């Protein structure tokens, strides 16, 4: 898998080198170096937290510009159901689908349709008892990356089903080919709520080529749709999905499609991590199915949306009485088993492991511990690492220098101004200890009668 496209890139002109993104990153994948944020892509799971938190809009989520669709003669829109949550007073999802045809697309294929098919497949596999419980959903690519990176012991609980969008993209192309459109004319475009899905699809290939010809941001498509929607006179029937497919857009929506009450749905990175920790301890063994989404409220919380996730979720809920629960327009039996499954598990670096073997890892761990014990433990971030512990690790790995710690620096400066005679008049055993205690606020500099600073 060629991982050449990243979820986020940095706009270094806008980046002020503040520590907002670094402190928020759930896998400590950001450092501030030379006054700019730097993403350590080995550790990045593509959750989009840094894009959301950056006060200077310096974190750019990856997606293709809308105009890429015009490179193809036959353009198919594949919208995520989150798109429907962006509009106020939307009575009918068909209005939005008709709008997509107005803004330049020739055909529309709903991701929700793929979602209903994946739900059906999940039910089938669960009924067969073929999955290891608690079963973890594979729908959120950031969560799947996180599990393979830090919770490997749970990797065999992740159901190896492809994401609904992948199903929808393949079926969209297949339908156009069956209709006699030349393959080279067809462009299939996912309209995405988040950069993690962009990344997952850009790095995902079939034997015939890429699954998606482009991945567009809901936010960009939204502004194209806004002016055309009120002008649509006649709304054609296009949608083939029921509420269950569409509900996948919000946390807990996937669970409703599995026909089993023993489920758990958690959203937001912090909550996801807590659930994974508990699963590792074996304390969720009474749960059959676990749905984890990196964004608050689920996919409607993705950073490429326009609307507040809670509002979007409320809007999706308001469709409920207007739509059938599920239509299951597609049947699992019509597709080969391998159509539904990953061809391989994600290849992710083990970021926790400190060394190639036990002895070298232990040696490094001791060095880190020793250094860490001398640090202030205030996690101020001034050194460019998210925590004192991460800083200690970076220093031991040779990625940064100890002097980057402002407290250590202040301590060294103060120590240089002391007589270094360890006379003990300040009440401390050594001048070094005195300097340390002054910087950490346990004593005051005036206690040393000989300090050059005090004699000024």
């Amino acid at each position, binding site marked *: 898998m060629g991982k050449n496209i990243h979820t986020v890139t940095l706009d270094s002109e806008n980046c002020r080198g503040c520590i907002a993104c670094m402190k928020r990153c759930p896998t400590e994948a950001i450092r501030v170096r030379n006054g700019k944020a730097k993403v350590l892509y080995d550790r990045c799971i593509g959750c989009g937290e840094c894009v959301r938190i950056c006060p200077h809009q310096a974190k750019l989520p990856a997606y293709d510009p809308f105009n890429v669709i015009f490179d193809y003669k036959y353009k198919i829109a594949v919208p995520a159901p989150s798109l429907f949550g962006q509009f106020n007073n939307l009575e009918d999802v068909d209005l939005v689908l008709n709008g997509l045809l107005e803004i330049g697309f020739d055909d529309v294929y709903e991701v929700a349709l793929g979602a209903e098919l994946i739900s059906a497949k999940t039910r089938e596999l669960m009924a067969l008892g073929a999955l290891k419980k608690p079963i973890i959903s594979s729908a959120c690519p950031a969560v799947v990356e996180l599990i393979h990176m830090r919770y*490997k*012991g749970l990797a065999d609980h992740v159901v190896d089903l492809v994401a609904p969008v992948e199903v929808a993209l393949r079926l969209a192309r297949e339908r156009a080919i069956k209709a006699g459109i030349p393959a080279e004319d067809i462009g299939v475009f996912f309209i995405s709520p988040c950069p993690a899905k962009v990344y997952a699809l850009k790095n995902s290939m079939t034997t015939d080529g890429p699954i998606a010809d482009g991945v567009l941001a809901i936010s960009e498509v939204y502004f194209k749709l806004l002016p055309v929607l009120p002008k649509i006179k006649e709304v054609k029937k296009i949608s083939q999905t029921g509420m269950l497919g569409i509900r996948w857009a919000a946390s807990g929506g996937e669970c409703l499609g599995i026909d089993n009450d023993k489920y758990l749905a958690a959203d937001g990175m912090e909550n996801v991590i807590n659930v994974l920790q508990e699963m590792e301890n*074996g304390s969720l063994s009474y749960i059959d199915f676990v749905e984890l989404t990196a964004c608050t409220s689920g996919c409607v919380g993705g950073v490429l949306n326009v609307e507040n996730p809670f509002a979007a979720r409320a809007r999706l809920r308001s469709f409920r009485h207007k739509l059938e629960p599920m239509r299951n327009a597609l049947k699992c039996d019509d597709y080969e088993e391998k159509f539904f499954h990953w061809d391989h598990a994600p290849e992710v670096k083990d970021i926790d*492991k*400190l060394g190639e073997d036990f*002895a070298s890892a*232990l040696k490094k*761990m*001791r060095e880190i511990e020793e250094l860490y014990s001398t640090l202030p433990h205030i996690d101020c971030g001034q050194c460019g690492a998210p925590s004192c512990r991460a800083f200690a690790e970076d220093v031991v790995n040779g990625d940064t220098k100890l002097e980057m710690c402002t407290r250590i620096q202040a301590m060294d400066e103060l120590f240089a101004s002391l007589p270094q005679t360890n006379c003990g008049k300040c009440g401390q055993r050594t001048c070094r200890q005195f300097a340390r205690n002054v910087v950490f606020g346990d004593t005051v500099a005036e206690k040393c009668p000989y300090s050059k600073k005090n004699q000024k």
Partner: protein
Amino acid sequence: MSEALRLEFNVAGNNFISAGSASDEVKKTLKMLGIGAQFIRKVAIAMYEGEINMVIHAGGGRAIVDIFPEKIKIVLQDEGPGIPDIELAMKEGYSTATDNIRDLGFGAGMGLPNMKKYTDEFLIESEVGVGTTVTMVVNFI
């Protein structure tokens, strides 16, 4: 420098907020040492159960963990009420937890049996009025 690492923890009693922090720390350490995920899983389950037991039944205690290249040894010591009938306590489903604690989702009577199930060596010594010591070993090979 020896080829082993010792970690020691004080486990606070009746504190469900910090409960599990010792096993989380051990888990994290094993990941850093590159121990296989399948072994970490066993250690996590056994140690978490043991830690929770000390929180619920014994008003806390101490955990002493020695990590070697080929195995981990976990000793959980408490000065709690002790277990009058160890054989009975080892039965699946047997529990002396109060309703209050069961409401929190603990006390299903699977603690000790699970600890035994997930470890390669399991020894429990207890004296009423003195305390309980559980010694567990998980091999990494």
